[in-house]
């Protein structure tokens, strides 16, 4: 994957940086790749750039193979990953490239107001967008309800930002490389209450790519890790139709599927990368994947249980909050972090010999969630 931050390169060239490093990492040539599963959420709106799958395939030496593009808001490239894994598992393809790319910074020529409107396009066009609802607003509504139900506090949310910024300083690919404090978070301007600016992930540019291959072929690759479960579920849209707003039910359903496929429980997962587009989203996710009981996500964050040295590490990469969030690249970037942690190649942020990790990639108003479980290869 590329660094996440501000990139001047075009979408094809930015993606090529990630794809070529994935080829190199896996020890494959384009001739070994049978198909291309690709995610980009908003290129049509941000850069007037669509039908990207064959364009990017051409850029990275894959013209001719079946290439498909996925769009599920922030869960875009996790869905590409799911479809790739299932196609390989089913024997349709043997070795495929999976990746995503997005540019969200002012490099696209779009400012904060325009990008806020483009992000809001993932909420219901008829029944939500006309109110002026924004994406910080969507997650604020979920989080406010959680605060109401369980007493979750703004300070607890701020601890998520402090922890993820700390982890980000140990990740050379992170958009933000500086520590922060609870006071700094709470003193930053409000974007949509309870979220301050420092509760929110940044607008980032970046790309990520991985190679997925069959169990039989994996032995001939450099340092593979196993995908043991991929769950994918949806919830009702708009927000008003969701039975319990703060439950993020799609994440619970997707996690149940992934745990069943992998034959494990939440207690057997050593760490997770979760979709912390806003600090509150990490708290909700930590409960939805079963790391903590409902209502305990906030206190757990405050107590340091989700830190690198905690008993339930979450977002060792720095998460979306510090690593950055180029929408269509985020899901595969989580897969990259799981891979590096399981190989023991995560450098200064390396966890203590993790054997099993989980990625939680959420799209839109929590209407889509993909949960992937990966394990070190014995």
């Amino acid at each position, binding site marked *: 994957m590329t660094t996440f931050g501000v990139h001047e390169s075009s979408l094809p060239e930015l993606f090529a940086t990630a794809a070529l490093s994935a080829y190199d990492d896996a020890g494959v040539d384009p001739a070994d790749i049978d198909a291309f599963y690709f995610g980009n959420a908003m290129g049509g709106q941000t850069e007037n750039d669509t039908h990207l799958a064959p364009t990017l395939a051409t850029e990275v030496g894959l013209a001719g193979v079946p290439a498909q593009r996925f769009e599920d808001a922030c869960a875009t490239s996790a869905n590409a990953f799911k479809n790739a894994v299932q196609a390989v598992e089913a024997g349709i393809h043997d070795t495929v490239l999976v990746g995503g790319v997005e540019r969200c910074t002012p490099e696209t020529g779009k400012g*904060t*107001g*325009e990008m*806020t*409107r483009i992000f*809001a396009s993932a909420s*219901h*066009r*008829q*029944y*939500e*967008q*006309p*109110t*002026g*609802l*924004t994406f*910080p*607003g969507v997650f*604020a*509504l*979920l989080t*406010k*309800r959680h605060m*109401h139900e369980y007493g979750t506090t703004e300070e607890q949310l701020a601890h998520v930002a402090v922890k993820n910024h700390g982890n980000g300083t140990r990740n050379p690919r992170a958009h933000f490389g500086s520590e922060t404090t609870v006071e700094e978070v709470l003193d930053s*301007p*409000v*974007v*949509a*209450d*309870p979220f301050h600016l420092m509760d929110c992930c940044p607008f980032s540019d970046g790309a990520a790519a991985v190679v997925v291959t069959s169990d039989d072929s994996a032995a001939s690759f450099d340092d593979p890790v196993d995908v043991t479960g991929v769950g994918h579920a949806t919830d*009702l849209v*708009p*927000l*008003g*139709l969701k039975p319990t*707003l703060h439950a993020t039910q799609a994440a619970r359903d997707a996690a149940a599927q992934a745990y069943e496929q992998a034959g494990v429980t939440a207690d057997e997962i050593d760490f997770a990368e979760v979709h912390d587009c806003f600090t509150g989203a990490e708290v909700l996710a930590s409960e939805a994947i079963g790391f903590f009981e409902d209502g305990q996500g906030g206190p757990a964050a405050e107590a340091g249980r989700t830190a690198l040295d905690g008993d339930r590490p979450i977002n060792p990469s720095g998460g979306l909050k510090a690593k950055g969030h180029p929408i269509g690249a985020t899901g595969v970037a989580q897969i990259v972090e799981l891979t590096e942690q399981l190989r023991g190649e995560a450098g200064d942020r390396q966890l203590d010999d993790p054997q099993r990790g989980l990625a939680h990639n959420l799209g839109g108003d929590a209407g889509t969630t993909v949960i992937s479980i990966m394990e070190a290869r014995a």
Partner: protein
Amino acid sequence: MSANMDETVSVGYEAWADALRSERVLGVSCSDCGATYGTPISVCHDCGSQDLELVDLPTDGTLYSVTRVAVPPTGFEGPYHVGIVQLGAARVTARIETAAEDNPEIGDPVVLSGVMEADDGHPAPVFEVETD
């Protein structure tokens, strides 16, 4: 077939928007299982029935969740409050208005106070926090 399609449109978004402009909030109710939804859909999520009827929702209720949007999208002037209002058995996303010095809170009583149309001709309900 075409008559059927016209009928489908007339009980969906257009009817919802027209009703909202005359200060009625419409949801749909399933004729087979009785489930009620705050915004129109074509198939009942609970039982799969396609026999959904537009129904008037109460125009007063309580705040289920609310946030103050300080950074608005292009086309909107902030800050303002957006909330989800509980209207009987259904919930609807709406603009929330309140006395300037008050922050609306979950559980506050709200009543429909009007309709706004800031987004390319798409109306949105506006609810006001009731003060006593």
